[in-house]
């Protein structure tokens, strides 16, 4: 699987200014795939949820992720305004933070920020990257 997508349109300056580590040298850094075990551990350790609650929470998060990714793909297919991409990026970032996936959330933050600033990144590549990272739990 190609998890290192070239983002040639991203300027070096913006990369240097970026606080994140997930976009480096115009490439999306390879992030570990998300597993069910990792999510179980997060919801148990951070929120002290019991097994039944964790199952409900993971199912709900997966549904929300699917919906958010679908909305992003659709917005990109329809060439929607960048502010809409930023808004959807913001939503997906919140979801990822709740799931304890801070590095993936950082990638979503980069997407949100670039879209909000009107930068023409390869947004589709980022969305596809997140999608692939979560395939095992969706």
């Amino acid at each position: 699987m190609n998890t290192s997508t070239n983002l040639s349109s991203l300027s070096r300056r913006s990369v240097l200014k970026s606080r994140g580590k997930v976009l480096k040298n115009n490439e999306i850094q390879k992030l570990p795939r998300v597993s069910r075990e990792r999510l179980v551990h997060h919801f148990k350790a951070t929120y002290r949820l019991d097994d039944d609650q964790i199952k409900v929470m993971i199912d709900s998060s997966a549904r929300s992720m699917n919906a958010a990714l679908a909305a992003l793909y659709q917005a990109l297919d329809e060439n929607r305004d960048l502010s809409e991409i930023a808004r959807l990026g913001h939503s997906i970032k919140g979801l990822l933070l709740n799931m304890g996936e801070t590095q993936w959330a950082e990638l979503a933050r980069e997407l949100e920020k670039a879209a909000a600033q009107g930068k023409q990144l390869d947004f589709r590549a980022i969305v596809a990257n997140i999608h692939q990272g979560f395939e095992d739990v969706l």
Partner: protein
Amino acid sequence: MTHQKILVVDDDPSQRLLLKMCLQKDNYSVTEAAHGAEAYTLLEKDPDIRLVVTDLDMPVMNGFDLIAKVRDSDLRYRYIIVLTSAEDKGSLLRALSSGADDYISKPVQPDEIRLRVEGGIRLLRLEIQEELIMSMAKLAEYRSDETGYHLERVQYYTRTLGRDLCEKHPELKITQQLAEEFSRVSPLHDIGKVAIPDSILHKPGKLSGEEFNIMKNHATIGGQLLKDIFTKTGSLYLKIAYQAAMYHHEKYNGKGYPTGLKGENIPVVARVVALADMYDAMTSERCYKKAFSHKAAKKIIVEERGEHLDPKMVDSFLAREKEWLSIRERFKDR
């Protein structure tokens, strides 16, 4: 046992679910809404929901509009906590200026949300205490002869005076916020009248010397009561209320009661309420007298400048005379 109800507003079901699970662990009863419009409808229907945790970016009605709508409405006060990303300071400021009370940064941490919610509940309890105290003022009003809109008029006269003094007399250190506070506590100035016997309170004629001495006790009784609650709670507005109740019958020339304080030694709120109360007493009908015209009342107020009344208060009254008249007109007794 009833549990505190909390409304969680977010367009994302998993975000709502996570918050719900966190809050239910602490025995809160959680209601959900997917956007601001749905939340507002729930708040209209259920006055027992006093605490709201809301996202900002939502379809149909966003969090900013929800906050503004709740604050603009006549609904009971709701404690509103906003969910926000730490980096989004602009949105946070906008939410707080719209009337949000607090915020939680995403991702939600269970301990943080518990503490923020507990803070909100503490504030709501204080507000309930305030409502109770204001109800006591209404009770005192029902018992006395001053039916109708006496408390409302005094409240508005006090606000008008406070605002004018804030602009013209910086040495008095009355801020706009303090002027509002004066107005808010003014209904409590006569609360001590609950302890005055009916035969004196409702006497349709002039009081004898002994009766007047008993009547004068209302200032000390009310003042002491409010001072005691202030000592127990530490709420600053109760200190201001105590000063208004205890000293609103003091005179600028030192010939008033209960302590004979003089001039600037009389707390400023008491000097403000003294004029507001005096004007309303003169221009209203009572069981022992007819209502004076505005012109007659104004004449007496001017004569009492520097005697009964602080000259600054009288000058402010004269400067804003039209506003006083329109308040009198607006809250006319039947």
